[in-house]
């Protein structure tokens, strides 16, 4: 965690969710790259962020891409956020005694089905061995997690529209990572709505 640095935050809005991360990759105090995205898409309604040890970010991402593609081919449908969370959780628990040093955050929207006509926006987060938490408001992880909690607690409110949610999550992330030496160096935000995903790269402090 403290080796490479990096933080991720996700928030629930009104029929939308948002997930954002910083772009720093460091080696302890030395900044190596400012283009290290920690948030990845599964499909156009589901994204996940992997803050933590950078080698495990790549390894886990490649492993999940394989597992999700297998799911897609076997089931002939897209994976739901809830199922994906459990897939990720069990993937992490497989390495119970030699874990991936990653605390994932999942954010997505479930497509309405006859069984579940009005699904709620979904976010979840896990510890390094896959213990799931599904908050109703926001989820934070990474080296700036404690600062993110503070800012998010103050800024978040229920039923934010996509553009308001964007403003809230952006300000939360930027102000939290500015107080963390191991996070920052740029930021990227994804707002997931039922008809589109808005991805924006933020101008951040580069020091």
């Amino acid at each position, binding site marked *: 965690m403290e080796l490479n640095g990096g933080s991720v935050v996700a928030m629930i809005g009104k029929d939308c969710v948002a997930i954002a991360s910083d772009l720093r990759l460091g080696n302890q105090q*030395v900044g190596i790259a400012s283009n290290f995205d920690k948030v990845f898409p599964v499909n156009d309604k589901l994204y996940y962020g992997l803050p933590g040890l950078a080698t495990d970010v790549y390894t886990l991402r490649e492993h999940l891409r394989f597992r999700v593609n297998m799911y897609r081919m076997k089931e002939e449908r897209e994976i739901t956020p809830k199922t994906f969370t459990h897939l990720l959780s069990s993937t992490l628990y497989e390495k119970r005694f030699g874990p991936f040093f990653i605390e994932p955050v999942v954010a997505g929207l479930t497509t309405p089905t006859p069984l579940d006509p009005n699904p709620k926006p979904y976010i979840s987060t896990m510890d390094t061995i896959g213990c799931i938490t599904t908050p109703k408001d926001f989820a934070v992880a990474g080296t700036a997690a404690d600062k993110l909690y503070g800012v998010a607690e103050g800024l978040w409110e229920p039923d934010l529209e996509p553009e308001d949610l964007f403003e809230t999550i952006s300000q939360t992330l930027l102000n939290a990572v500015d107080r963390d030496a191991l996070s920052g160096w740029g930021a990227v935000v994804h707002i997931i709505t039922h008809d589109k995903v808005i991805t924006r790269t933020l101008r951040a402090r580069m020091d």
Partner: protein
Amino acid sequence: MECSFGITGKDYVLLCSDTSAGRSIVRMKSDENKIKSLGPHLAMAYGGEPGDTNNFAEYVERNMRLYHIRNNYPLLPGPASAWIRRTLAESIRSRSPYSVNLLLGGFDTTTSKPHLYWIDYLGTKAVVPYAAHGMGVYVSLSTMDKWWFDGMDKKEGIEVLKKCIDEVQKRLTIRFNFNCILIDADGTHTINIESEDPLADFESKTGSAAQQEGIEVPQPPIDVGVTA
């Protein structure tokens, strides 16, 4: 006590590494080549635990060669970086991990773009325009931050590299000799970075420069009329 740099330019990538080998403060060899050519347009500057370094570099080199023989075209920089990263990532969680840090530089002949990857022994990979490993990071990264810009020509790139080397010589107590290569569309070339105008003797050579200068290139280079 080692130090290596990589810089990308408009249509080339520079790799530079110190040439000392030894243990702790004792230097046992001052002309060790720590840059290995992995194909016609791919090379890496490596460092780390002595023993692991050469063993790993040769392992990578032969695997790149094997891919070239099997497919009749070499592995492009991106896929090569993914393979090397994965090898190191699997190694770090094994019983005997390789302790090797490397800078992978390559020229993508399909898109005519230079590539540079910063990879460490954990399997961390960063795609970067300029990078350093070893003692040099503390002084050279800020030099590169100041002087590097997008789309540098060869002369400008070598200027930046010289500035980095000067900074290392000025700020570090250890004296290093440097060995440097340039990869462009024509392949791998050695550069004598200590000479007054490193580009002059590089440009006067024609054809397969790597061959003339005796750089370690997988032998013999196969030409089957198919390129990547």
